[in-house]
């Protein structure tokens, strides 16, 4: 919500890609995103959750892979949303009213972000400096970019939500590689048994995270 207040803070922390130029993609072949979309996704993930002193970033956690895999689920096809018309615009507080499923939001949104990058800076988003990327992401978050009938804030919220999911969900879904997201939070994951820790007051649970498939961090 308080996007602007953090602007200064963002500039002073260790960013994983403080230099210009695209970030090297992990060896994964996306199924849904084309090359230009994938480059955007990797670059945006790297800005939304950068690697820093607090822990790994979204790229190391394979969040782009998570999002690409999600695009193949019923959720991304809009199967869990009420998608019957008519579609009418209304006040923001009455919620999402567009006829687009997540897959379409990504297609429209990424094209829109790259178009804005090209118009303003003559290059696609992934080729901009970290500072320019942050400016564009903040503009999208504020809703001040226009992508046809998809408000930039709608796309940004979709992206941010999926990035958070990818970094912090069980690795079974393709993100949170090595449970790095959980380790930085101190979240024990699928342990789901604190019978002997309920009344150990104020001290952190001693065992590392486990995943659904039995990995240990």
């Amino acid at each position, binding site marked *: 919500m308080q996007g602007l207040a953090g602007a200064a*803070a963002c500039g002073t922390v260790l960013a994983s890609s403080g230099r210009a130029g695209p970030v090297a993609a992990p060896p994964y072949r996306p199924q849904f995103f084309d090359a230009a979309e994938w480059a955007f996704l990797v670059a945006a993930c790297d800005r939304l959750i950068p690697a820093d002193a607090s822990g790994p970033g979204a790229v190391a956690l394979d969040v782009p892979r998570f999002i690409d895999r999600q695009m193949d689920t019923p959720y991304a096809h809009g199967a*869990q949303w*009420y998608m019957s018309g008519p579609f009418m615009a209304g006040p923001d507080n009455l919620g*999402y*009213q567009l006829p687009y499923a997540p897959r379409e939001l990504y297609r429209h949104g990424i094209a829109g972000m790259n178009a804005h990058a090209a118009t303003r800076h003559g290059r696609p988003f992934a080729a901009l400096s970290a500072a320019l990327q942050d400016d564009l992401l903040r503009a999208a978050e504020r809703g001040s970019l226009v992508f046809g009938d998809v408000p930039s804030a709608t796309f940004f919220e979709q992206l941010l939500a999926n990035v958070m999911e990818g970094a912090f969900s*069980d690795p079974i879904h393709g993100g949170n590689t090595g449970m790095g997201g959980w380790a930085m939070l101190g979240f024990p994951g699928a342990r789901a048994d*604190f019978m002997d*820790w309920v009344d150990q007051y*104020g001290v952190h649970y001693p065992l590392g995270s486990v995943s659904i498939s039995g990995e240990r961090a």
Partner: protein
Amino acid sequence: MSTDARRLDPVDVVIVGGGWAGCIMAKEMTEAGRSVVVLERGPDRGTASDGAYPASIDELEGNFRYKLFQDLSKHTVTIRNNSRQVALPYRRMAAFLPGEGVGGAGLHWSGVHFRIPPDDLRLRTRVIEKYGAKFIPEGMNLQDYGVTYEELEPFFDRAEKVFGTSGEAYKVNGQVVGKGNVFSPSRSDHFPLPALKDVYTAHLFRKAATEAGFHPYSLPAANASRQYVNPYGAQMGPCNFCGYCSGYACYMYSKASPNVNILPVLRRHPLFELRAACNVLKVELDSDGRRATGVTYADAEGNTVTQPAELVILSAFQFHNVRLMLLSGIGKPYDPARNEGVVGRNFVYQNVTTSTVWLDPKVETNQYVGTGGGGVAFDDFNSENFDHGPLGFVGGSPVWVNQAGVKAIAAAYSGGPPGTPRWGSAWKAGMIDTYRHSLRIDAHGTNMAYRDVYLDLDPTWKDAHGQPLLRMTFDWKDNDIRMNRYVVDKIGNVAKAMGARRVHLTSREFGKPFDTRQYQTTHLGGGAVMGTDPGTSALNRYLQSWDVHNVFVIGANAFPQGTGYNPTGMVAALAYWAAHHIRTTYLARPGPLAG
């Protein structure tokens, strides 16, 4: 009449919806020797299939893909803040999360299990006695339930024994017996299980609330503190504070659910039949509309089927019950312009806000440890436990720490303290600090009923069966905003006593409309309320339709206005209360229940 529907052989009782209300009614009716069919729109579910460890411990599927919840693509509602607006479809899950499938929301609820405060049952009378009729704001429909705590007590007791509820009593048979809620009424018996242990944050809250001069108690929780066998012979294991209550089937068989506490016995009863994936379209009435003849539903193959029955019980959840009444022509629909009619009238919600307290960074709050119903509360500002005279509002809020288990994606979404960006390195640092060293305190308040807040059928949008969606007209009102702000201010005193490093008090803001995008609770109420006056209630005090005597409507729809507590303890008690009167009076002499 649906003439093209396939007609089945009649049964004694048809029950719409397989959640807590439906399963309690089915159990009671089979005990009374009646044949029962439960029609449930969602899939069959159980612990073995939906709560198997470790696959069920998946936050993405449970809380973000809503695996166990209502399929909004088929059925949803439309919402607007006032009747001048066009209501728009609730297209994505957010503010409230209705359940679907066998067990209903009772499979994936949290477990906070309350009895309603006695004063809440006769709130109109109490407010007038204490402050005079002029105290009730213009446009507020304040009503009594038409039933007293003393009448309901045996049924609260029954429900707690069936649910295996953990808690500490204050008074049993008029004698003070323990350190329970000093504001709670006398009980006929102790809780079936002792209170759960306090997690660290609840322990701190208990201490700080005492220091601040309040009266903390353990939340009554339908999460078993020990192994337990209920009166039906269903068994529960001790809760291990796994933190996966809300949104999940309990893999430990520790959280009460229809699936664990009733269905294992009910499913084996020869008079009981469960039909999943059957969506009831309407209740069929005879030619003069005074008697129900059964229900018509769409089965999994898309056939339209009519199930004749002597008795119809709607237990499809609060707003689905109201919609089925409207679709079937049971009771007079509410007309807000003329202030007439009752079905859809007095629609209410839960007025909850959550504040955050940051402790010393050396202190780990372990927010992932927790159980859905566990925690510590105080009631000093709930119900009529305090003097509203100088405050000028009706209603109140219990205040509590109810650490149900905060998991990683939720932590990421919640982020850092206000002022922190929502992404980037500053977010990361703030979010990790918040997750590890903070705790949350809720003001879980009442929402009163108002003349211009109501339910009706939407003129535009339809469900997957071509039937109109229900339309909600809802907004927060001045009385309830002022109540929330008064109580949240008290949370500041508790936080101070905790030695907080930082406090963020969240209260409702004037002029900020109800926002369907933010999760609040699924504690929706009213719309087909109980009472003693057919002019202001759709149901009599036995939850029987005033107009169609062989239709009983069980759920939080019966609440004339909101209460500060979570609804399910009251819903279960009302189900047992209605069932008792059906069994003792109605079945022998079907007709309107009097008195």
